[in-house]
């Protein structure tokens, strides 16, 4: 019996590969995503950034924290592609080494925010009633402190530092994820198949994990990608304000802040870290746009 089943499956697979082109959700997604050239380029750029984050610090041409007093504030040249800063450190090397920090802060903070927000959003949407009201009121309060202000408030409590920036950006992502996941939970919950699962007596746990959560994943993925860009921006802003990474860390926002005093004479010290932030955030935003267009069934080509 078992052999027969396996044979059958192989048969089906062969058939589906050769004769009928089955549209699985993944192949459908890939077909739509591939068409968007900008998003595709961004995808490869993000892969490149991740590679740089891993191997960057070991391949940079110059020592990133060692001062070189013979080369203070020299402009871009063949030896120093992006010039040197007020301590004679090679800016290009520091930017490459800093990729790690920005990506780490962006990914970890959004991941924490997404996990927290997803749990709250599913609980809120699935159980409704007082659970929903309590969770949504908490979100309202958190969202009442707009934008970066909530993060600044949290830093004011926890004190400056990169670790606290991660916590602050994570908390500030939670209510947004919670709302998005809540609304997709509500729409999945009202579908017929969830109704059917309930009627055969499935437990809440099973319904949530097997049906509700998978239904919310695509909106989580899209928002996750878009959020990374703004998390990197927020973290860089906080470091720029002196509330995040502290010198001599090669965090881009902190580097930029360090260049402010030399803006008149050496604008390259602020220019290049800014470009690094800009290009990185742009790549994540374009990737997010592409994912949204490819995953949203409402958008036609």
């Amino acid at each position: 019996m078992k052999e027969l089943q396996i044979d059958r499956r192989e048969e089906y697979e062969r058939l589906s590969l050769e004769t009928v082109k089955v549209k699985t959700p993944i192949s459908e997604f890939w077909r739509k995503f591939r068409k968007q050239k900008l998003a595709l380029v961004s995808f490869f750029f993000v892969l490149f950034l991740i590679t740089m984050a891993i191997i960057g610090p070991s391949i940079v041409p110059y020592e990133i924290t060692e001062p070189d007093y013979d080369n203070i504030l020299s402009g871009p040249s063949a030896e120093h592609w992006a010039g040197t800063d007020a301590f004679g450190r090679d800016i290009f090397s520091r930017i490459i080494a800093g990729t790690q920090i920005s990506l780490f802060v962006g990914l970890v903070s959004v991941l924490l925010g997404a996990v927290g927000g997803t749990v709250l959003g599913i609980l809120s949407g699935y159980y409704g009633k007082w659970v929903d009201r309590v969770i949504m009121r908490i979100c309202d309060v958190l969202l009442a402190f707009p934008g970066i202000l909530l993060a600044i408030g949290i830093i004011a409590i926890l004190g400056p530092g990169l670790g606290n920036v991660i916590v602050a950006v994570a908390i500030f992502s939670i209510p947004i994820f919670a709302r998005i996941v809540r609304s997709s939970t509500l729409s999945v919950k009202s579908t017929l198949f969830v109704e059917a699962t309930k009627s055969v007596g499935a437990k809440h746990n099973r319904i949530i994990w097997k049906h509700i959560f998978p239904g919310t994943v695509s909106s989580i993925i899209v928002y996750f990608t878009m959020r990374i860009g703004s998390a990197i921006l927020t973290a860089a802003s906080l470091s720029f304000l002196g509330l995040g990474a502290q010198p001599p860390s090669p965090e881009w926002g902190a580097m930029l802040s360090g260049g402010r005093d030399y803006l008149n004479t050496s604008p390259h010290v602020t220019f290049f870290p800014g470009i690094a932030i800009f290009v990185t955030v742009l790549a994540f935003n374009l990737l997010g746009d592409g994912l949204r267009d490819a995953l949203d069934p409402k958008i036609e080509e």
Partner: protein
Amino acid sequence: MFRFVTKRLLEIIPILFLVTIFIFLFVHLIPGDPARLVAGIDATNEDVEVVRKELGLDKPLHTQYFTYMGNLLQGDFGTSLKTKRPVIEEIGSRFMPTFWLTLWSMVWAVIVGLLIGAISATKRNKWQDYFGMFGAVSGLSMPSFWLGLMLIQIFAVTLGWLPTGGLDSWKSYILPAFTLGTGVAAVIARFTRSSLMDVLKEDYIRTGRSKGLTERKIVWGHGLRNAMIPVVTMTGLQFGFLLGGSVVIETVFSWPGVGKLLIDSVSYRDYPIIQTEMLLFAVEFILINLIVDLLYGILNPQIRYE
């Protein structure tokens, strides 16, 4: 309409209540003893106890909250730890510059955002659309503090046309307002484009076309007017980003506003100022969203009857 307004006003009360609790608890969330923080590092244990009594920190938490609320309602926001002046004076003189800065940023961002969005939607998949949307996503991805510094470098340092910072005349507004509004203009442009594209598919647009209305009248008269409804809500939410962004921009442009004061206070741990500013920003944001909701009710007659 009256019922709608009352309902929205009543909804605000519990949120405001929770916001004040959050802000009140703020002092107690800071690691360490708040009384010691106020008394200073050199204070003896007796000094700290005196301060604790003075501030009522020895009383139970709920009593402290009622005292705090009572003081708030009487306009007493405490004293700055740094300058020893009343918080209301410190913030009062800096409120208007921030208010005008955010308002001007919003004005240009809405106008330009709507324009770019409308052009992109009507010239869908043409170069205008690609150009507009790439510009928008770039505006969204640009670190505002970097943009501000680069603009200072070009227009103030190199060309000498505009001041590098501070607030002296109307010219002082140009660079900071432009910098602050860029992100919002980008969001509004993207949102207007998708909203207008949806509207242009509607039946009444087809009716308009079939009765021979000019394309201009269809897009700007019927289309954009209906597309505006969700855009208005979005704009209200974007005001929040402006308020938050002002903190960063004011630091870049040495703007004499509440945002810069907040950052200075965070490094000094001047918590009476931080608390009051958080409250101020939250209340401002809640009020703006209330106004936006009411505006929404005027634009969309369906809402009023719900």
